[in-house]
């Protein structure tokens, strides 16, 4: 296991380099938007990865509440953290693209607003984990994660009605994407998923070791003879 990690890391980094080449050089230049459109190969895969990680967080939280399995809690924590990172990438690359193409940095559109709200919810989840002092943080966090996930469809519907004027569809409304672009998009997504796995794995191991150390220290404090202090 320990040896697998650096090997996987090198493989994924190489793959990322290859997909960056594909996205920046090989993929055809978009007719109207020009090279700005290439940010799309980073924006969309990050979004998909973030949403997938939030889904994992939701499932892991439910599993934790039912089984009280510490591994499920660690998966929930890790997926929320890495998910927030990818979601931040989405929220940063979006305005960078929107400024030259739409002429504005931000618009209160359905997808933009939903993503922002999602980001806020999971940030508050991480804040709760950071600020909570009790040993029962996982239970509280899992409950909050379920609330957050329940909130997502409500957010989406409310904003959809609130802002009916939808700017041009982000992915050209579906069928109109060039197959070569789709190909580059998909391999980029694969690379991003690999990167996310790598992050999660590293973070999981770190969290696991942190808990082991905490446990050992607690045990040592118990075993220490009373007179020695």
């Amino acid at each position: 296991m320990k040896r697998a990690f650096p090997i996987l890391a090198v493989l994924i980094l190489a793959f990322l380099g290859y997909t960056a080449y594909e996205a920046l050089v090989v993929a055809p230049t978009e007719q109207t938007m020009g090279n700005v459109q290439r940010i799309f190969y980073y924006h969309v895969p990050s979004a998909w990865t973030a949403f997938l990680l939030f889904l994992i967080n939701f499932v892991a939280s439910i599993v934790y509440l039912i089984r009280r399995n510490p591994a499920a809690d660690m998966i929930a924590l890790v997926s929320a953290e890495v998910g927030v990172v990818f979601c931040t990438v989405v929220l940063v690359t979006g305005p960078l693209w929107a400024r030259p193409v739409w002429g504005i940095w931000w618009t209160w559109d359905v997808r933009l607003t939903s993503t922002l709200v999602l980001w806020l919810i999971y940030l508050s989840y991480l804040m709760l984990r950071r600020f909570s002092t009790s040993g029962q943080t996982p239970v509280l966090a899992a409950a909050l994660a379920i609330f957050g996930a329940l909130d997502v469809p409500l957010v989406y519907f409310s904003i959809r009605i609130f802002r009916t004027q939808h700017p041009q569809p982000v992915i050209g409304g579906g069928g109109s994407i060039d197959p070569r672009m789709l190909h580059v998009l998909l391999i980029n997504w694969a690379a991003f998923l690999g990167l996310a796995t790598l992050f999660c794995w590293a973070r999981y191991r770190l969290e696991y070791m942190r808990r082991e150390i905490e446990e050992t220290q607690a045990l040592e404090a118990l075993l220490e003879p009373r007179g020695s202090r």
Partner: protein
Amino acid sequence: MEWRSKDAINSMLFFALLVVVVFSFSFDPNAEESRQIAGGLVWVAFLFAAVVALNQTWARELRNQVLDAYRVSPAPANSLFMAKVLGNFIFVAVLEGLMTPLFIMFYQLRALGPAWQLIPVGALGTWALVVNGTFFAAMSLRTRSREIMLPLLLFPISIPALLAMVSGTTAILTGELSARFWIILLASYDVVFTIACLLLFESVLQAE
């Protein structure tokens, strides 16, 4: 319970009043503009006042280990929760009842749409704030700096409910759009989160 300490209600009333006055200075609205912005103003004032009240909900139980007594008592956790929610609901509703005439007075409000619809919007909106607020207050009880933790948890989750309250109120006041969708959205928000709170409260209460 809450009436025993007059601090809470007095400070909340004063706070909401301040919001009304400060906003009217900063916007200086005429009747038409005030219809557009009043929905947002009213609910921002109520939201902040409600957070003040919700922070008190469980904090007073900590003082004499009452919460531990609840934990060991055979009474079901959910009835404790519902009692707290109902208490807060009445409390916030009274506050809203007192503040609404002031808003009408200061902003010369007159609903152009069906005014009776303000009652379901108000009731459902208050319930949405209070049910989640009570739950998150119990949750943030065990955290450092819990007064600031409650709004941090409550506001992101409440965004759809807030949007529905504000848009519903504005729709009724301006009379341009129908508020029915917003009332339905608020009702479904209330149902979903009341059930979620009842399902999860037991484990949150037991979390030491």
